[in-house]
């Protein structure tokens, strides 16, 4: 709780500074969706369909706002969180977001999930001048304050992450022959573009690039192709189910490359354990959040708070799912942002405050990683730390790294 209070004080002092620079604090100002009693926030999530495993994020955020309201809300205002199921279908997202913005009149959209779905509403949100905050996708296009001043991302983008892997490969494996497995959609593509950029003129080191579709039952065939190419470094851009299959199949085939696994699948419980811990030794990834199934955090204060919170507000939920950690952290950031708005709950001020976080410590982010934004920097979390898998946990190593996307 200590950190929380410190942040809160920090937040208040920022507001104080702002008020000194001309923003009248005492005067209450509202856009649609905010009143003396209530703040209304909208959200879309895939509770059904092929991406329904992400649905828990929406559920957890909903529980988070309930707990906030239980504590007395934000500056005395209750948060009303309206979350709808878009089934990961862009046309449906457009329809639902219009419903939320025009009928429900929400103050802002928060954590809308998915790259194609967010792309579909990107223009609309910016034309309507409604904040599209901390979107739940790692694409690199959400941090362009010049063209899209109403949209902001949250997590380190895939592009940046892939650049970091590429640089690490170049620095550590002189004779790398790289094989890449990629999910054939925009999530995979974003990683792939970043990876190519990171390799630069050494792009020729990629000896094989294979893709899979989410409708494929297994990726066995793809792994055989990668092994056959003679690759000794493996960059694995896949979601947990397929990542686990890939790790297991590689072990079955006796293929032992240096294995870089994308952060998306870094969960011990949902990727590495199903793949077999013995098959997962030495895998490298980049982390920015704590993994709830990683024993090294068992005594961490943030983790304990989170765990107690989960028991109270999401009883029965599977705590090994990293999505809950993610949802909790991003909701905390939203809560702080709303708090900082004080009584000026206009959409303009919300964006101004979202773009005004300095070294904000958000619980469950890795130690040393903080939130930094500014009117020209719309990427809240930009840092990651490399880790290798040993025994049953991730071993963090090296410095905290950030490479800014452009």
């Amino acid at each position, binding site marked *: 709780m200590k950190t929380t209070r410190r942040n809160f004080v920090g937040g208040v002092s920022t507001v104080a500074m702002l008020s000194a620079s001309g923003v009248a604090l005492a005067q209450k100002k509202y856009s649609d969706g905010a009143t003396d009693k209530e703040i209304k926030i909208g959200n879309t999530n895939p509770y*059904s369909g092929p991406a329904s495993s992400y649905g828990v994020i929406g559920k957890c955020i909903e529980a988070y706002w309930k707990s906030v309201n239980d504590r007395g809300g934000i500056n005395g205002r209750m948060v009303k969180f309206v979350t*709808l199921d878009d089934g990961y*279908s*862009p*046309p449906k997202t457009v329809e639902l977001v219009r419903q939320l913005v025009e009928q429900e009149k929400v103050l802002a959209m928060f954590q809308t999930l998915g790259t194609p779905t967010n792309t579909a509403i990107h223009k609309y949100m910016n034309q309507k001048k409604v904040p599209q905050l901390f979107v739940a996708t790692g694409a690199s296009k959400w941090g362009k304050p010049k063209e899209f001043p109403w949209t902001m991302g949250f997590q380190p983008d895939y592009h940046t992450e892939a650049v970091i892997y590429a640089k690490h490969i170049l620095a550590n494996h002189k004779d790398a022959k790289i094989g890449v497995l990629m999910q054939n959609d925009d999530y995979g*593509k974003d990683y792939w573009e970043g990876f190519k950029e990171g390799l630069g003129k050494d792009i020729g080191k990629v000896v094989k690039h294979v893709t899979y579709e989410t409708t494929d039952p297994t990726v066995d065939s793809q792994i055989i192709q990668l092994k056959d190419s003679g690759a000794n470094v493996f960059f694995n851009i896949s979601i947990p189910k397929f990542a686990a299959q890939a790790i297991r199949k590689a072990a079955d085939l006796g293929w032992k490359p240096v294995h870089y696994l994308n952060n998306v699948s870094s969960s011990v419980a949902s990727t590495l354990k199903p793949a077999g811990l013995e098959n997962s030794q030495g895998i490298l990834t980049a982390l920015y959040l704590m993994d709830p199934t990683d024993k090294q955090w068992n005594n961490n204060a943030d983790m304990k708070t989170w765990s107690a919170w989960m028991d109270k507000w999401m009883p029965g939920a599977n705590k090994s799912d990293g999505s809950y950690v993610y949802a909790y952290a991003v909701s905390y950031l939203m809560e702080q942002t709303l708090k900082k708005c004080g009584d000026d709950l206009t959409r303009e001020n919300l964006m101004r405050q979202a773009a005004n976080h300095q070294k904000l410590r958000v619980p469950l982010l890795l130690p040393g990683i903080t939130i930094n934004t500014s009117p020209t920097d719309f990427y809240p979390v930009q840092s990651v730390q490399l880790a290798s898998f040993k025994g049953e946990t991730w071993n963090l190593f090296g410095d905290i790294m950030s490479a800014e996307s452009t």
Partner: protein
Amino acid sequence: MPAFPKKLLWVLLALAFLVPLLHPLFPDVVSGYRLFLVSTMIIAAIAVLGLNLLTGFNGQISLGHGAFYAVGAYTAAVLMDHLNMPYWATLPCAAVVCFIVGYLFGLPALKLEGHYLALATFALALAVPQILKYKWLEGMTGGVQGIVLNKPEVPFGLPLSEDQWLYYYCLIVMVVLYWAAANMLNSRSGRAMMAIRDQYMAADTMGIDTALYKTVTFGISAAYTGIAGALSASAIAFVAPDSFNIFLSIKFLIGLVVGGVGSLAGSVAGGIFYVLVDNSAQALSLFVRNDLGLPFDLSAYTVFGVLLIALMYLMPMGIVGGVYLAWRKLRGVRG
């Protein structure tokens, strides 16, 4: 299937044209969002109408009309994006492209019946999103990222909002297509189409060129659905492979069956239902969770499934069939 009373049709149509003009009187009821919602219903109705021509009137099943919808949408999007074609000019292009694709697909489909045709069309629906991502087409289709478009602008300086114009645009297209379909079905060709459905062998023996009729029907059906796709590209202002997954095709089928197989009015009901059932399932699920406070989390998808089964229970012949039966019962007609 019963014919829809003509008088009622005219009244409904007049209402449909007048309602948006009530916006100044009831700004919250006739809001932009509602008109947009109705526009999506109209688009779905056109797509279901296309499917109905094939399945309902010609007896060929399709589990893959989402594919033609996607082709139509992409045709429109590519023309608008690469050639700066005005949005209204893309409709005939999408129709032609989809007609050709549908006609060509109809050729092998001649050999396939029932479950086999179901598989072939299902496969088509699965293949199209993958083809859109195909390496050599990426430059045109935008690959996995899709194409972001502009919304249709109001022409001739009409005093309408974007949503109102979109609504009228979709409505006019639907009325024209509905009228064309009704005329076609009422003609010699239409009767041939239905004869093939009901008595294939008799139709064949009587000298109807069954192969030609079946393939052309496939083409026309695809063109209808393709036009709906092109309209949706304008309405949503974004196309991406993810928008055209297999669930889209299944939803068209649901719309068809729930509306009424082999009934033009049923297609419209099906299109409306297609949008409505999703939203009401969500509303119901939210209601159960927040207002009834059940400990069990009833997801919208579960409600959706239950609604479907319940509807088939109550009206196995679809909404139009069900309403017709109820109406007859009310009037005391037996038979």
